[in-house]
Structures are given as C-alpha cells and as structure tokens.
C-alpha cells in the first residue's frame, strides 16, 4: 500500500469511529446544554442500548432475519426502550437533585453508571454475548480502498440521525422550547414552557441516540460486553468537550475530529498506537487552552 492508500484507509477508519463518538457525544452535550449535568451514565446507556437491540433481534430474527432489516427494527425499538430508560433515570435519580449543588448530581451520575454496569455484569455473568446479526461482507473497492456496505450504512444512519436531531432542535416548537430552557430555565418557565417535559424529551433523545450507537456497534463489531460503554463514554465526553459542550454541531464535529485523530495518530511515525491516546488528549488540552469553550461552544454569559 502506498502512503496515499494508507491515508484514505485511515480517513475511512476515522470517519466510522468518529460517527460512533459523535452519536454518543450528542447525548452528553444535549443533557449538559439543558440541565448543566455531566451525565456520566451516558456511556452505560450505549451499552444497555446494545443489549436491548440484541434482545429485540433475537426475538425478531426468526421472522425478519438477522440482516440489515432486523438490525434496523431492533435499533428503533432499542432506541425507544432506552429513551424511556433515560427518562426514568432522570426522574428517579436526577430530578430530585436538580437544585442541589452540582457536585452531588455529578456523583449521582457516577452512581447510576455503576448501577447499570454492575447490573449488566450480574445479568450476563461477565460473559461476552455474540450479537447474532448477519450483515454480509460486500462493499465497493476503489483502488486499494475497500468501503464495505456496512460502513456506508452505518455512517449514513449516523448522519441521518444527527441531521434529524439538528432539524428537530432548530425547526420544531419543542426544539425551540429546548433552546429556551438551555438559555434560562426560570424565564422559560415564566413564558409557559413545561420545563419538566422539555428535560424529559432531552433525556429521551440523548439516550435514544446512545442506544442507536450501541445497537449499531453490536451489529458491526459482533459482540457485546457489560464494560463496553466505559471507554466510549469517556471518549465521547472528550469529543463533546473538543466541539464545545452544549453545542450540538460541536458534538458532531468533536466526534469526527477525535475519530480521525486516533486513526491518524496510530499511523504517524513517532506516535503510533502506543501514543495515540496521549496524542489525541494533547489536542484536547491544546483546544481548551486556546479556546476554553471548545471549537463551536459559546462563552457562558453571566447575567446580573
């Protein structure tokens, strides 16, 4: 392979990886935007989403097959289920804490994360679960670059979900309410916006996107594990911060940038896979030094 081929291959790897990061980062950023909470349980919702998709698929596979149709239906149902799980978590664990100091709610989020992770550990006895999707290996070859149909569908679905979310937030009445709550919760309430409903919708959407990523990851990588949400949760959080936490386009951009940094970092001489995390996190620090609000974040205004 020539340098150019390696470049295009790593570009593709970075885009696929970045799509996962971006989908999970969106949930972080939306929740932070609306309730100023770093929801550390978010990576776990990705994991639960994967298992929910697996459960649905094992029920449906005899009827609609384990191909892309089966995965798509499982993904949608997993999104709805985990979306509601996100709302339940918000109501049970976060809502009573919303007026408490920020640190308390942060610790609650860590606790929720441990509950979900260890709950799944107990249910699965720590075993790997094969996802059971059969997606085929076809694709398009462009010179030395092989793009599988799976990768195309995956990136396409991720892009469509992100576009849908962007349209929802910018064009609909609920989206406008969401933005209003993000700016000033109390004023929004005075304007007659049902703040609790807006927070519920935010958690629903964020969790549903994580579940979509979880199901797609299960289908694409082939297996599920109770611990699979931990690392991606951390990475997605990083992506959200790079892009500017609270900003939806920022999360998408941040996810893509982090995915590309990791792919190219692996190949860079002197960096390599050994140093790729040092490399991408150095970029994070650099971004925060030069632009503390992240690439697309807006500085928070203090109101007197």
């Amino acid at each position: 392979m020539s340098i150019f081929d390696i470049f295009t291959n790593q570009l593709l790897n970075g885009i696929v990886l970045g799509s996962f990061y971006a989908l999970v980062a969106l949930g972080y950023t939306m929740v932070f935007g609306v309730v100023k909470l770093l929801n550390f349980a978010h990576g776990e919702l990705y994991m639960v989403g994967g298992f929910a998709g697996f459960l649905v698929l094992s029920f449906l596979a005899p009827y609609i097959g384990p191909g892309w149709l089966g995965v798509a239906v499982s993904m949608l149902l997993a999104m709805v289920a985990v979306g509601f799980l996100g709302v339940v978590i918000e109501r049970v664990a976060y809502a009573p804490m919303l007026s408490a100091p920020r640190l308390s709610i942060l610790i609650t989020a860590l606790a929720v994360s441990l509950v979900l992770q260890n709950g799944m550990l107990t249910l699965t006895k720590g075993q790997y679960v094969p996802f059971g999707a059969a997606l085929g290996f076809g694709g398009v070859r462009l010179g030395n670059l092989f793009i599988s149909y799976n990768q195309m569908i995956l990136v396409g679905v991720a892009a469509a979900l992100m576009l849908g979310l962007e349209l929802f937030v910018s064009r609909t009445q609920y989206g406008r309410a969401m933005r209003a709550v993000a700016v000033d919760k109390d004023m929004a309430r005075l304007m007659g916006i049902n703040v609790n409903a807006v927070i519920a919708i935010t958690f629903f959407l964020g969790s549903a996107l994580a579940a979509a990523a979880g199901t797609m990851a299960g289908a694409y990588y082939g297996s599920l594990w109770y611990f699979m949400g931990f690392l991606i949760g951390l990475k997605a959080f990083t992506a959200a911060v790079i892009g500017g936490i609270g900003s939806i386009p920022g999360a998408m951009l941040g996810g893509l940038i982090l995915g590309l940094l990791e792919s190219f970092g692996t190949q860079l001489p002197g960096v390599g896979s050994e140093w790729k995390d040092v490399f991408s996190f150095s970029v994070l620090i650099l971004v925060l030094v030069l632009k503390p609000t992240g690439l697309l974040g807006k500085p928070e205004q203090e109101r007197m």
Partner: protein
Amino acid sequence: MRNVIKTAAGLALAIAFGMPAVAQDTLTIGIMVPTTGSEATYGQDMANAVNLAIDEINKAGGVLGKQLTSTIGDDGCDAQLAVNAASKLAASGVVGVVGGYCSGATIPTLKIYGDAKIPLIIPAANSTKLIPENPGNAFMINSTGNDQVAKAIEYFNGKGIKSIAIINQGDAYSQDLADLTKKNWEAAGNKVTNFEVTNKGEQDYSAVVTAITSANPDAVFWTAYYADGGLLIRQLRERGYQGLIAVGDGSNSPELFKIAGPAAEGVIAFSNPTAEFLPQAKAFADAYQAKYNAAPGPYSTLSYDAMKLLAWALTTAGTTDSAKVIETLQGANFTDTISGPISFTPEKTLARSNFVVLEGKGGAWTLAQ
C-alpha cells in the same frame, strides 16, 4: 456475671467469624483468584480445582494429621483488590496460599506474602516481571513468558515466517510477552513490522488493522487476553489479512470463538496443558464434572497440581514452619501431578517448558503439536 457475658460475646464472635476458638485441628489454605470482574470465570475454575484437591487430600487423611479447609481472597484481577485480598489471607493465619491468575494483580501481593512468611504457589500468572519481585517464598508452576516466547519463535520458524506484527495491551502480562518476543525475534535476525498497543475495552481496531495490513507481515501475534483478541482477529480477517494469527496463553479460551466467530478458524494459541489435552487428566476432569457440573477451565489442572504440591511440601517438611516448607519446595521433584513433573529453577520458576501449540478448528481448540 460480666465475665460470663464477655466470654459469651467472645465465643459468639469467634463462631461468627469462623475463627478456630480453642484447639486448632484444621489447617487453612488461602486461595487468591479473581472471583469478580472480567476474569471471574477463570478464578472460579481455579478455586474449584483447589477445593477438589483439598477434598481428596482430606479423604486420604489430611496433612500432618489435620484436615484442610480453604478460604478465598478475591483479587478481581486488580492490583489494589489483590493487595487487600492478600492482606486478608495473611491475617487469617493460612499455612500456605495457592493463587495468582493475573500477573499485574499478583506482583504487588508477593511482598505481602513474603513479609508474612507464607509459602505461595502460583498456578497461572507467568509474567517474567514476577521473578525479580519474588522475596523467596513464591513458586511459579506455570512456565514463564520466556518459555512461551521460545515456543512461539520455534513455531514461527517452523512455518517459515520471517516478519511478524506484535500487539499487546500495555499490562504486565501482555507487555512482558510482547517485549520478550520482540527482543528474541529481532536477535534472531527477523523483522517486527508493527509493535502496537491497544486499550483494554476498545471495540474498534480499524486503525491498527490498517497499519498491519499495509505492512503485511507473515504473522500477527496477539499477546493479551481473549476478550479483545477476539474482536481484533475478527477485524483483521474482515479487512482481508491473510497471514497467520497467533495468540498467547491468555487468549486460550473457548470464549474467543464466540467473539471472533469463523474468523478464529486456524488461529494458533500457545498454551499451558489444559485438562482436555492430557490423557492422564481424565479422572480429574470426571471428578471435577461430578462435583461442579461443569468442565474444568484452562487453569484448573495447574491449580489442582499446585494444591497437591503444597500438601506434599507440608507433609514432607513435617511442619507448617514456612522456612522448612519453602526449603522443601525449592528441592522438590514432585511427580504426583497431572500436568507433568514439578521441580524448580533457582529463580523458583518451573524447571521445564510446558507449552503446547493449539489450533482453532470448528469453533474449538485442538492440539496442533
């Protein structure tokens, strides 16, 4: 009256905590394995095997005229948990400990057992990093990384392989194996095209896979555990890597086939001898199956042998005095085992290599040589 209450309370406490209150007519063996966390299944297999050995020893009259009991310390394959587990075992008056699965978790416990002067027999953990940390009371009955590397290089040479890629996870066990392989492989005039490190728990290996396929080595050697190895093997084959894929003994698990699927076909594993490949282990495997209603795990045979060895050392020394027991172990030439005779080098590692080569066929490991 007061004294009566005190005595009663003391007695109740002693009973509650299972401490031998008056005369000590049993000897307690400590078992240090992970019974929680990602390696919990292996740890349970090992504890089961030790307890099976204890049952048989007790039936045959016990050790030094006393019956054996066991107590488990859960190391969770984690250095901090392991230190707690070791301190707990050391404090509970065990006469010896069988345990150590994850090298990274075992290393910090060596000093604790050393300070407490407790003989430790390590059935599984085999990183060469354990050797310099050994205060003199620990004996490794699994062949070390050195032996594994020798076996791996012998196998690669036999297959006419000239260039390899090595991938580890940056933990004590897999990094040790990777470094040793790289050193000895290059010393023999061969080429290492890639030396990669991945994070534990990562799902996407595409960047590393591209780096490897673009260098196209004759073989890929994964030195870490099965869980992430399965994902890597799958992604290597999906991206069209055609060469040989080999894995270290940490990946010798049937679970690998669940994760990698058909991609694991033809994968080579270097492994210590497990019960299913030892004809002399049949009776052990049957007894294990009968007692636990499950097949023995990859490290069950060695754990069983470790317990037998410890009981032999106590009996031969004729005392539980640790200095005598350690001296006996050092001079051991113990043949009443299923995994082969045990004697030790001056470094207290197994004096021979016990590695075999396995090949993935039809979703299971088979003996290749």
